[in-house]
């Protein structure tokens, strides 16, 4: 059994209440930080822990915190990114729903480290019931003196609010999130300046993922060095993985970084193997935007080493033969899965979610969806595979925000590793069953 630091108490009855959470050691990191540590000492522990952002990019959290500009007389903000909209990712929801105080505790400790007196949790609109859970927990925390003026009798004060978004994937991109939080249209900003210098209302701001912030509590409690001992190399600590697809036990798992991919898929502790005794075909390891890998490349690297659940191992081989840990949205596909149809679903999503600010993403995502549609209705030709490849290459790296890449990468990877499936459909003018899309459209209309 791997160690668990974030959701070890998820089955405890009423752990969502302050009373039970506290009885299980909750809010200890706030006590320790506020009473015995300076803000810089907290930041130092986070640096030592090697914690990397759990929102997708994996940027070292301690470093991000130390970049925060601290001009005199200007407020600073901590904003928690709870927009979790990447298809295949649902770990933040699990954490917030089951143990809301873990996030609130992390927000207090982290806000103290950053010197923020007002912090926000920006949550996607579809999670409205989770927002209610958080709001209830925040009320409890205020009543018990964990939030508000002079927390624990110190001179540190913090207000925490929940802001519900309108349900747009793009508002998970940190600068679009800040625009939305300011009450404006959720368009990503052109960087620089970065949020660390000019973020929310032009003030220095740190944006962190839910899981990143929750991980600060165990780091403060056990010390950064202890935390860094878990995991392998630069992939330290534990990580929540949202496991979905054709597996026996879909769900959210906390793993110690470094678990072999094969063990994660097949062991009873985690996914429990492929359902109905089928064979594994492919895995999207880090949320819908990361490159898909076929069985042979997800279980072993091109060099023949076992692939591990770490940032480095999953990325081994670059995009030619590797992928990314991303947000930890682990989507497993069995031998009966149509890669083309799956790609259509992803592409349709990115097309729908593009904000439309920059030409390559605005126009290119829709074009890719239309080309893919031809593969589904049996009108595609071999030329369309090359066209699709070319269109994705004209989007990638040429856009304002990484949504362009998020749309291009899955297309590139599907063609790279499964080109034969595209060609087979094009040559045989095969139809792919899309009846469920039609049903979906009928419902919408």
């Amino acid at each position, binding site marked *: 059994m791997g160690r668990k630091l974030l959701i070890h108490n998820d089955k405890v009855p009423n752990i969502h209440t302050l009373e039970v959470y506290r009885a299980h050691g909750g809010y200890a990191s706030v006590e320790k930080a506020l009473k015995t540590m300076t803000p810089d000492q907290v930041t130092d522990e986070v640096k030592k822990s090697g914690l990397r952002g759990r929102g997708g990019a994996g940027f070292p959290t301690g470093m991000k915190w130390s970049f925060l*500009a601290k*001009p005199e007389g*200007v407020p600073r903000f901590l904003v928690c990114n709870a927009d979790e909209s990447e298809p295949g990712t649902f770990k933040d929801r699990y954490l917030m729903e089951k143990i809301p105080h873990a996030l609130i505790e992390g927000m207090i400790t982290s806000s103290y480290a950053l010197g923020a007196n007002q912090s926000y949790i920006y949550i996607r609109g579809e999670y409205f019931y989770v927002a209610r859970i958080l709001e209830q927990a925040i009320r409890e925390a205020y009543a018990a003196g964990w939030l508000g003026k002079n927390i624990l009798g110190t001179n540190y004060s913090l207000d925490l609010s929940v802001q519900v978004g309108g349900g*747009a994937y*793009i508002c998970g991109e940190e600068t679009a999130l800040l625009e939305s939080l*300011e009450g404006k*249209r959720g368009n990503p*900003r*052109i960087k*620089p*300046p970065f949020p660390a*210098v*000019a973020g929310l*209302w*032009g*003030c220095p701001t740190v944006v962190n993922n839910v899981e990143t912030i929750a991980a600060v509590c165990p780091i403060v409690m056990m010390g950064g060095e202890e935390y860094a001992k878990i995991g392998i190399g630069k992939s330290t600590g534990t990580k929540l993985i949202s496991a979905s697809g054709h597996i026996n036990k879909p769900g959210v798992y906390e793993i110690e970084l470094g678990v072999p991919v094969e063990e994660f898929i097949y062991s009873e502790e985690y996914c429990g193997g492929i359902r109905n005794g089928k064979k594994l075909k492919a895995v999207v390891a880090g949320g819908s935007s990361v490159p898909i890998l076929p069985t042979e490349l997800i279980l072993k690297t091109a060099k023949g080493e076992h692939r591990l659940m770490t940032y480095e191992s999953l990325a081994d081989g670059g995009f030619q033969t590797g992928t990314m840990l991303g947000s930890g949205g682990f989507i497993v596909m069995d031998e009966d899965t149509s890669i083309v149809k799956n790609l259509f679903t992803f592409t349709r999503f990115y*097309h*729908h*979610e*593009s*904000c*439309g*600010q*920059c*030409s*390559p993403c*605005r*126009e*290119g*995502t*829709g*074009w890719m969806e*239309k080309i893919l549609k031809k593969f589904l209705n049996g009108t595609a030709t071999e030329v369309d595979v090359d*066209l699709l490849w070319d269109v994705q*290459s*004209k*989007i990638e*790296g*040429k*856009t*304002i925000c990484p949504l362009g890449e998020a749309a291009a990468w899955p297309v590139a990877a599907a063609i790279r590793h499964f080109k034969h499936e595209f060609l087979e459909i094009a040559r045989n003018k095969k139809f792919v069953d899309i009846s469920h899309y039609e049903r979906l459209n009928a419902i919408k209309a």
Partner: protein
Amino acid sequence: MKVTIDGIEIDVPKGTTILQAARMIGPEVAPPTMCYYSKLKTSGGYCRTCLVKVTKGSAQNPNPMPKPVASCRTEVMEGMEVQNITSPEILEARKGVVEFLLINHPLDCPVCDQAGECKLQDLGYEHGAAKTRYEFKRREYEMIDIGDKIKLHMNRCILCYRCVKTAEQITNGRVHGVVHRGDAAEISTYIEQAIDNDFSGNVIDVCPVGALTDRTFRFKSRVWFTKPVDAHCKCDKCSGKVRLWMKGDDVLRVTARKDQWDEVEEFICNTCRFDRKKVSDWVIEGPSPISRQSVISQNHYNHLNELKVQVLKQQKALGFMDINKRP
């Protein structure tokens, strides 16, 4: 600061963007721009036609930048080296951007008032492919009248945000510019509310394509059959310095004067633009120079400055900071 663009070195002040530096060298190395507008704050970054490759970040950090950057929104660094037309990769990327801009564009140039002075026509001509690879139905919208003077032909819009920034910065008090998202995004008709503003007509001049056109000129003549002359009048709202588009003795259209980069020199008021259509309204200076470069003069701009101050005040009141300025 010394920066090298396509092998040509130039010394520019701190805070200059790659695009501005390239323009200082000359039109040969200046990347094409569809959304940047030097007179509009926070413009640029959207269309991606001005992408360049930074092969050396700076003298201090010589690493190349991993992705192409929008030259209009990237400031130069000491010792930076940039490739524009000398990079095959950039030319290929630009071709891609032009194709993206055109796949949903109607290309109805024969009936478009912008033909002849359209930036998209120029761009397509210089960087586009001869044949489209797009086989699907193009996006279509209804035409919209924005008041009785301006026509919005959304089919032709490339979402460069210039009109949005103009309405925000030159006319006062407009918040929303775009509704919907992705390829369903539209310039919003809330723009109608800006029509009673004295400077709203400037959105026509900043529009690089035929999406916003002057209804008082619509279909009167092809641009190339009219003769541009520079003229001025005494105007209490703007500088009164305009360009008249004449056919014989008739003034068919009044616009602001544009510089070498096709940007207006000074924004003009709606009275000059829409209501002064008689030769006797104007003091004719002579034929317009083909291209000219100048900056907005400060004279005669009290009204405009006032508006800008108001916008700034508003932003301050809301607690916004100029995102162009770093603290």
